[in-house]
């Protein structure tokens, strides 16, 4: 009667085998394979400088993906992060140009720190709208954030009339210089954007593993009804993850517009899909309750290093799209292998 088809993978057992290790560490091995392969194909790929440049590209997706991870752990989805990123950049650009107060007849130039704070608050506000729609009005997350995708993008286009803010440098006389610091400066040779990503990843990782909120999030993503009956404030958790996702998108928007020293209303289009892909490649389950920051970071680096590598060896952009898509599907395929068939 030995029947093992229904048994779950043994936990804490010593029966390690190569297949299992490859399956569980797949994002890591994929990254190694990508780095090794492109190092052979191109002489310029394997260098500290190139890794740092690629990492500052990854920073944008990585920040979005961390916010997305929180939402996906809760069993939801946030399609609005790309648009929120674009809107945040535009609002930051708008604030940098000075805010004219017609009644007082003056133009206010907020300092850069105030621009950053206001932009992050904007991201939180956008996320809060998503969260309230989903938690209190029971709008499906897919629909609520799809609507927000359009609304935020539309607002960004309206604010700029479709144009781009190019002058984000500020002026010494106005006391608002330094916006490019985020995108261009380095500390100990590491781009600020990458450092921001690392800090956000560490903070969120700590929250997930070591705080009550993290436990609530995993529980309500795994079984919301059980979590609720155990006293978990499931609605509060739900709203919080969308707010945090909006904040992450706003930070990514600031980093991107600083890197480009310009803020266009179409920045970040389809980035939400890249972020979802990073989370999924990192082993998170779209049904909620499973996933972690480490995996998501690996997922973001896999996508970033793959697409930059393809650019470096001169593969056409169309092929890049095909490769990225294939990697995503492969990742989900492996996820369903790891978590087994659902139910009995």
């Amino acid at each position: 009667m030995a029947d093992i088809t229904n048994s779950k993978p043994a936990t804490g057992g010593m029966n390690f085998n190569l297949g299992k290790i490859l399956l569980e560490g797949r994002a890591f091995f994929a990254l190694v394979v990508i780095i090794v392969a492109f190092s052979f194909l191109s002489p310029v790929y394997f260098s500290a400088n190139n890794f740092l440049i690629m990492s500052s590209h990854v920073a944008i997706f990585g920040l979005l993906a961390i916010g997305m991870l929180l939402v996906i752990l809760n069993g939801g989805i946030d399609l609005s992060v790309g648009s929120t990123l674009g809107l945040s950049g535009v609002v930051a650009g708008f604030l940098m140009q000075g805010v004219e107060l017609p009644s007082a007849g003056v133009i206010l130039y907020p300092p850069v720190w105030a621009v950053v704070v206001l932009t992050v608050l904007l991201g939180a506000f956008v996320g809060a709208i998503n969260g309230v729609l989903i938690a209190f009005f029971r709008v499906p997350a897919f629909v609520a954030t799809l609507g927000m995708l359009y609304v935020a993008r539309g607002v960004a286009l309206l604010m700029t009339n479709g144009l781009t803010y190019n002058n984000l440098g500020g002026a010494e006389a106005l006391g608002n210089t330094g916006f490019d610091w985020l995108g261009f400066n380095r500390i100990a040779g590491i781009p600020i954007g990458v450092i921001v990503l690392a800090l956000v990843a560490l903070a969120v990782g700590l929250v997930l593993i070591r705080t009550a909120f993290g436990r609530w999030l995993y529980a309500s993503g795994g079984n919301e009804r059980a979590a609720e009956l155990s006293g978990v404030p499931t609605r509060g958790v739900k709203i919080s993850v969308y707010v945090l996702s909006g904040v992450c998108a706003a930070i990514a928007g600031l980093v991107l517009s600083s890197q480009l020293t310009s803020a266009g209303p179409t920045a970040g289009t389809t980035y939400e899909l890249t972020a979802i892909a990073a989370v999924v490649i990192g082993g998170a389950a779209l049904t909620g309750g499973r996933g972690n920051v480490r995996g998501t970071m690996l997922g973001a680096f896999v996508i970033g290093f793959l697409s930059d590598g393809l650019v470096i060896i001169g593969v056409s952009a169309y092929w890049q799209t095909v490769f990225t898509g294939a990697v995503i599907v492969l990742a989900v395929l492996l996820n369903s292998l790891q978590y087994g068939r659902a139910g009995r």
Partner: protein
Amino acid sequence: MTVQQSIPDEKKTGEEVVMSARHVAKHYGPIKALKGVNFDIHRGQVTTLFGENGAGKSTLMKVLSGIIAPTSGQILLDGKPVNFHGANDALAHGISIIHQELALAPNLNVRDNIFMGREIRAASGVNFAEEERITRALMKELEEDLDPLTPVEELRLGQQQIVEIARALQAKSRILIMDEPTSALSASEVDVLFKVINDLTAKGVSIVYISHHLEEALEITDHAVVLRDGTMTAWAPRAEIDLEWIVRNMVGENFDLGSPPNSKMGDAALTIENLCVPDASGHGLVVDHLNLNVRSGEIVCIYGLMGAGRTEMMECAAGRLSAQSGTIKLQGREISPLSIAQRIDAGLVLVPEDRQRDGLVPTMTVGQNLSLASIAAFTRGLFTSRKDEREVIENSIREVTVKTDGGGAMIGSLSGGNQQKVVIGKMLATRPEVILLDEPSRGIDIGAKAEVFKLLAKTAETRGLAVVYTTSEVSECLSIAHRIIVMNKGRIAAEFDHTVTKEQIMAASGEAVHH
């Protein structure tokens, strides 16, 4: 009479055997739902399966109808071994099943549900006119005045059950399995169903019947088979059995579920006054001006059938449902405005009926499930303390005696009984004053059941915990409870002390009234 695991004797039965199970076993990981069952179905006769929740009745029916494949053992059809590849294959062999949980598509109408998956094809697509004609004829046979074009979601539960029955009848099967077909039917609908069953058996159709209403089942059956804990414990033709025989074989003669503990009864712990909870439609009341008083250290059992309002009463007390009117007091303090979390803090916890749906987080470990309701107890400032959490988890595992590799094991690796102990342990870890348990014995084997009751009795005695549990098994009323309350249609029908008899309880519940 009790023949452990014997193969039914062909000569004694008279009628020809059309289908039989031989040494059928079904394991789900570590859980053994069936441990080698032998079972015969006779042509044109009704065979009833008796057994408590979790005895394996539904699993056996799913094996017979091809929905799940047995882990080992054989199904014989007309004496020849068969392997069904899914329910449709079994249907092709003339076997259909009416599920306990209704398997209808609520958005489709009655006609489309009856023909779902076996539509009558015509050159131009589906022959809806013919389907509608047959549906009308079926409804006439079942004496139910239903328009074939009514969406199923607009029907009462009982009418939905009629549709499910019609669906099985339409398939013109020679073996029809009915898993609790009457649970949502009114008395007159049950009469009609029995008439239909008699017509079918007269035509040579064999019926396998499962019901919790023992007396009702005795009315219709030709053979009785009793399952307990995944094994067939007894088997006999109708002429040789009575209610007492069934209950004895279902429950086991000597299994001790405990006795009321000698706890020191304190002040009123939970006081419910005039509680009214509206039903799903919003027109009637599922809980109707209910009063309940439980003292600390006291164990109260609430007995009632499905739909008696037990679950709603408990969910309302725990804060998941809101009441229409009435007061709920915990140690004299009104708790109606509090949230679920605040009620847990105040000392009132609920162990829900459906542990898979409402009790466990399947993606988390045993330890994380156990500590879920008491995270605050091991949070120091901003962060949780791993050391303190491990202590909470290890204490819980010891207290409720969970058999596990440790707190790090996945919750899915545990058996049903141990999973239930985790849900109970999770709530006990919050150090409650009152614990409400909705069907705590559902789907767990008799040994685990006894352990759960022992645990509750001990906690009531040592901690002065007030315990309220519901059950639909009479044998579980007469165990650890100091008081037994019988609920019927949202009201308290009777109240007994622990010296009451099974017959008195069943009479009070309205179970025996239907004839």
